[in-house]
């Protein structure tokens, strides 16, 4: 990338400042869904810069090499970015106009970055919505417009200690709330576990454990216009969450990162809620065969879980928009998605990729696949992270018993409404 001379940059900066100053004040925006521009046919060419986080960033160059074989005129450069503070890094890059062509984004970041206006709209018909799990596709939709394409997904199941469950006399996974409570209770009284289950008692990320209960009860976080956190379904769900702590089935103390796994394998806790990455972690600790997976139970609604993962987005000021989208759509081919799973164990966001033997043949993975059909994500609004933090605070009070479920629901609703959707 050529670096313009300092003076030119300064001149540009001054001009930009002058122009921006003359345009002081925000645009109101028309609130209509935008349509993406079409992408030209043919092979990709030119430079394509990609940012990806963590292991995905490390290993993406393998897929990039395959892409370059198919598109000899294209040159893909992948920069791996640490997850730690990645959100701040991308924000700074947008502010300093130093963004790449393509970037990976966490699903909960979509609303915020879409609102910056820095992301390009997903081109229609180039990447097809129906190929993906509906919950996953929704994570990329902000205000009715699609700004990101789901790349890989994850969802949550109950990881259960086999021996404890057997000892407790549980023969099949509980299907609804009452049977789950019974099962957990048996694991504590008959199965020999100190805690029947570990549900994160508030603090960062607890909403990912608690919100599914709301969905399982037929409730919603918001209905497209208003927040519905204090609906009767949501309140009931919070009561259900609180019941585990009240009845002594889950510890009220946060178990620090890294200690859940040994405690599960030892049988100190009967079960915890987590995602597919724990398969590898537990097996590494010698837990292979010692645990099993249970799907989410249903309340008054569907047996829903949380869906997360990462999306791929293209920046509006990309100099190679065509190439960028072609690379993104390459990553979404079912066979590439399978290859990606084999490389880093990330679950494909494309539904047809799951027909492949690698995934459908593995029992545990199949359970995740089935759950993905019934998994939801929070609304893709720019203020989600802040609202979620508020939820976490109230959830801690609920778990520790300093607040009733009804009061917590009201507090959550009030906070969310006052924070708003940043529209």
């Amino acid at each position, binding site marked *: 990338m050529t*670096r313009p001379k300092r003076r030119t940059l300064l001149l540009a900066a001054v001009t930009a400042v002058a122009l921006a100053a003359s345009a002081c004040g925000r645009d109101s925006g028309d609130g209509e869904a935008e349509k993406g521009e079409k992408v030209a046919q043919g092979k990709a060419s030119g430079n394509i810069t990609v940012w990806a986080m963590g292991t995905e960033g490390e290993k993406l160059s393998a897929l990039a090499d395959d892409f370059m074989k198919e598109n000899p005129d294209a040159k893909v450069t992948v920069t791996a970015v*640490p*997850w730690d503070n990645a959100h701040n890094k991308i924000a*700074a*890059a947008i502010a*300093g106009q130093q963004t790449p062509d393509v970037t990976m984004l966490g699903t909960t970041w979509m609303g915020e970055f879409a609102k910056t206006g820095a992301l390009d709209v997903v081109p229609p018909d180039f990447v097809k919505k129906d190929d993906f799990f509906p919950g996953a596709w929704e994570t990329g939709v902000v205000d009715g417009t699609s700004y990101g394409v789901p790349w890989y997904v994850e969802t949550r199941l109950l990881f259960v200690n086999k021996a404890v469950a057997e000892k407790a006399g549980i023969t099949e996974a509980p299907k609804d709330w009452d049977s789950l409570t019974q099962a957990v209770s048996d694991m504590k009284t008959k199965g020999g576990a100190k805690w029947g289950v570990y549900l994160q008692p508030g603090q960062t990320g607890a909403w990912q454990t608690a919100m599914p209960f709301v969905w399982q009860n037929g409730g919603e976080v918001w209905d497209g216009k208003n927040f519905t956190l204090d609906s009767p379904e949501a309140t009931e769900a919070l009561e259900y969450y609180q019941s585990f702590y009240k009845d002594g089935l889950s510890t009220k103390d946060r178990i620090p990162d*890294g200690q859940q796994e040994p405690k599960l394998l030892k049988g100190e806790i009967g079960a915890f809620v987590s995602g597919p990455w724990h398969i590898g972690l537990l097996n*590494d600790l010698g837990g292979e065969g010692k645990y099993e997976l249970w799907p989410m139970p249903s309340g008054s609604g569907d047996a829903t879980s949380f869906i997360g993962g990462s999306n791929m987005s293209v920046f509006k000021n990309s100099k190679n928009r065509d190439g960028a989208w072609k690379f993104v759509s390459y990553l979404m081919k079912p066979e590439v998605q399978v290859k990606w799973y084999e490389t880093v164990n990330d679950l494909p966001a494309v539904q047809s990729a799951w027909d492949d033997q690698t995934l459908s043949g593995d029992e545990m993975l199949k359970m995740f696949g089935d759950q993905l059909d019934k998994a939801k994500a929070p609304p893709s609004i720019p203020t989600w992270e802040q609202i979620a933090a508020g939820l976490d605070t109230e959830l801690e009070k609920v778990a520790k018993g300093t607040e009733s479920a009804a009061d917590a629901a009201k507090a959550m609703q009030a906070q969310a409404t006052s924070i708003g959707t940043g529209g």
Partner: protein
Amino acid sequence: MTSTLDTRPESPTPAERGERARRADLRSRDHVARIVLHVLLLGGLVVMIGPFVWMALSSFKTEGEIRADPPTWWPHDPTAGNYGVLFNRLDFPTYFTNSIVVAVLTTLGNLLFCSAAGYALAKLSFPGKRALFLVVLGTIMVPSIVTIVPLFVLSSNLGLVNSLAGLILPFLAQAFGVFLMRQFIMSIPDDLLEAARIDGASELRIYWQIVLPLCRPAFATLGILTFLASWNNFLWPLVAATTEDKYTLPVALALYAIGQNQTRYDLLLTGSVVIVLPVLIVFIALQRYFVRGIATTGLK
């Protein structure tokens, strides 16, 4: 007082007997103090180095053992695997070079600029001196997370993004360094400098030949602290680098060790050991300057 020529042993006078008793008393008190001091410091030492030793030992354990509950001390099956993974996956030479170049240049630059400015603030008078010092002091107090975005926009406009210069320049003039040097230089007696001025030495000469040599302990301190801060700096090198070849070690380590939903403690701790070693080397090399012995003030 007996003269030195007198070799006849004398029976001690009461005064001398008292003096000897007092000295013996002091010696035994010294002895007790010595033992007590050693015990206390030793006890404290064990508490101090405990976690570090655990960290170093854990770099030879597997992820499973590190997560064991309760934690283990000695590795059950010592393995250098973590080091292997780290050095194979990490482009270690590049990251190490970047870190070293940035840390060394930042440290040397700070030693020079902060001692010069510290000297001016401590011993010279010029208009705006007080204001400058207060402004400098004030900025130490702004949390860095808040200034990261404006700093990045500034660097972008100056063309400094994704360059080593961009990693060094923003940290070449540390408010903290100026503050430290000012305080140290304030304790240099004014008479010393006045004498040199009367002798006709220029300010530059006074600074170079009198002030700087006296600052050795301060330089050791500032050197260690600046090197440590620069070496461990994570947020700015993360934001300022747009390609991997400009990453420093802490950024690279976070890349491999911290995932979206999980942390690889084996790599994290091993990486932490690797990252800490140069700092320790610098510290051990410089800490002898804390030993009394360079006491010369020229006040004779």
